[in-house]
């Protein structure tokens, strides 16, 4: 029928698992070259600014880690939920609540902190995110309300709640009525891990989350249950796995990790509460989760790649005056190639007509 078609492989190709991202990057470089050239920019310089310049200094690599940290933290939690068919779209709101609760603790104990303050904030951030995620979990289990809608709507509610707090209770009393909190004191700030960068304790948590996520999914019975429920819910039912427990667990876990990400932002690079904590990390993390094929290590790499595309866009703006809009188009292309080439893992590209028409067999079976 068609000249080019896909033929399923007997089993997933190990080689392609590692090759496809390289193919995608190569395709992105070629089409990026054409895009920048067509827009009248020096393509070599633009690609250099995008991919090389941001990582050509210690500080730059550190920035990459800072940017990737909230993405990875959110994505690890989301991916575990997605494996169980729990569609949490609300990481953005859970991140915000983590910042509201954890950051609120920093403000509540302003001036009377001690070594215990930061650990308390971290716990508070995780609890805040988890509680916000508990709402969709409860509504799904008790009232059968789709978590896609409830978690998404709660993102907006969280945004307005933060806005309300920033104009009211959280406002810096000496801040000329601007919607910003006090700067957190030293006891309430994430310690830096690498001198000369902004890499903070949160990045370590992100790595721990990667390791923990891998362990949970690959080595525990709960992880096994999650996978079974995601693949064949009916079989899981026969096996006696409780779906409600998995819904609670995955939502609370992803909420806590998103909350930790939010706390990490306010107690890390921002150092205070303000109305714009996240430029959409909770949404971008969904892409990161799938780009990483829902695998913790894949997510780590995807988080870095995504962070690079953001930071590279800024570098290209500064170095060449490349408009932000082109960055968005380029980012989209990069993602499309990455997602599209994944097909090669389980399918082969074949030219020419089919050799064995399967439809007949299919018909007979039906």
């Amino acid at each position, binding site marked *: 029928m068609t000249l080019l078609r896909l033929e399923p492989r007997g089993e997933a190709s190990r080689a392609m698992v590692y090759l496809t991202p390289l193919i995608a990057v190569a395709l992105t470089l070629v089409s990026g070259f054409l895009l920048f050239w067509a827009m009248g920019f020096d393509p070599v310089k633009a690609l250099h600014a995008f991919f090389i310049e941001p990582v050509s200094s210690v500080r730059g690599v550190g920035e990459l880690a800072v940017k990737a940290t909230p993405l990875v933290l959110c994505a690890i939690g989301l991916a575990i939920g997605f494996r169980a068919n729990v569609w949490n779209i609300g990481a953005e709101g859970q991140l915000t609540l983590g910042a509201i609760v954890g950051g609120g603790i920093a403000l509540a104990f302003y001036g009377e902190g001690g070594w215990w303050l930061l650990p308390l904030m971290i716990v508070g951030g995780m609890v805040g995110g988890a509680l916000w995620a508990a709402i969709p979990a409860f509504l799904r289990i008790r009232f059968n309300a789709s978590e896609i809608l409830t978690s998404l709507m709660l993102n907006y509610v969280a945004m*307005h709640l933060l806005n309300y707090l920033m104009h009211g209770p959280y406002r810096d009393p000496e801040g000329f009525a601007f919607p910003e909190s006090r700067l957190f004191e030293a006891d309430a700030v994430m310690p830096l891990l690498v001198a000369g960068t902004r890499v903070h304790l949160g990045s370590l948590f992100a790595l721990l989350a990667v390791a923990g996520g891998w362990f949970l999914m690959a080595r525990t019975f709960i992880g096994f249950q999650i996978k079974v429920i995601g693949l064949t819910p009916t079989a899981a039912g026969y096996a006696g796995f409780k779906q409600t427990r998995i819904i609670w667990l995955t939502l609370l876990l992803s909420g806590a990790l998103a909350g930790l990400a939010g706390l990490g932002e306010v107690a890390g690079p921002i150092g205070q509460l303000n109305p714009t904590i996240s430029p959409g990390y909770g949404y971008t993390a969904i892409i990161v989760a799938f780009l990483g094929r829902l695998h913790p290590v894949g997510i780590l790499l995807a988080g870095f790649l995504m962070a690079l595309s*953001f930071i590279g866009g800024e570098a290209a703006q500064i170095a060449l005056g490349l408009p932000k809009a082109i960055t968005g188009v380029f980012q989209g292309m990069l993602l499309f190639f990455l997602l599209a080439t994944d097909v090669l893992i389980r399918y082969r590209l074949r030219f020419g007509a089919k050799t064995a028409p399967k439809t007949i067999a299919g018909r007979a079976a039906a």
Partner: protein
Amino acid sequence: MNRRTMGKTLAGLAAGAAIMALGVGAADAQEKLKVGFVYVGPVSDHGYSYQHDQGRLAVEKELGDKVTTTFVENVPEGADAERVIEQLATSGHKLIFTTSFGFMNPTLKVAQRHPDVKFEHATGYKRAANVATYSARFYEGRTVIGQIAGKMTKSNIIGYIGSFPIPEVISGINAFTLALREVNPKAEVRVVWVNSWYDPGKEAEAAKALIDQGADVLSLHTDSPAAIQVAQERGLYVFGQSSDMTRFGPKAHLTAIVDDWRSYYVSRVKAALDGSWKSQDTWGGFKDHMLFLAPYNPALPKEIVDAAEKTRTDIMEGKRHPFQGPVKDQSGKLVIAEGKQATDEQILKMDWYVEGVQGKVPK
């Protein structure tokens, strides 16, 4: 050594010197001052960030042989801001304008690491040896348009679309209301907050809601021209914000308060070039050309335009203050006594409404 070779050597030396001179010249040309601008919105917003970019273009136009400029648009006011400012500083920019309030603390953090770089932060209140601040007294413009509104309204209800309840917006509402009620004591102001700087749909909805409640003149402190279009469609009046929005509603648009950073940016870049730059706080009004009014609508009666112009020149010459006592708050409490004027600090921290504004400041 004969004369020929001697001559050659001399020529060579001369040539070498010439090359060196050229080299120095070329280096000079490369040593143009690099000036960076950080915007919170897209340069194409035709509002806040657009007006800042007009300032940058004025710098290019006037000092293009001595400076090069760079801008970064759509920079979120979270963790990203510090990185962008840092990147500008490390890539050789020696003067950096950060043009939104949320960039205040990131600017100070970067400034601490780069004492050789000069920073200018818009609308903030924290300064350092290498961080200056600047803002415009937008409320001066509000006094003039409030007065016009008081004379143009028939329903005595004025609709006011607010972005966020920060002092800049609230002092604008108050200056507007004071001037409004000076000429028309029966008039009142109704405020709707859209909790966004730029959401045309929501701004249009707010404009419609206010008109449906009887407002026949609108004022806005959000950046899109959506409310202008609504007023034009409904045959009412409106004042533009940030830039001249006449083309979106030629009949409805009475005038606009236009941000004008051109002369400030040019003067600060000049100061950086000639070494006279120092950290300071600039809070300029009509007098300092930091804002101006868009051309008045030809439909405005001459006596109203004359009165508005008198108010504007009185403010410029210091004969009139937008917050001239007695000023009472909503509860009737005297906040600014008879014969007194609001201090800059009172205006900068304003979080209360004057008499004549409906509703409460959201807190």
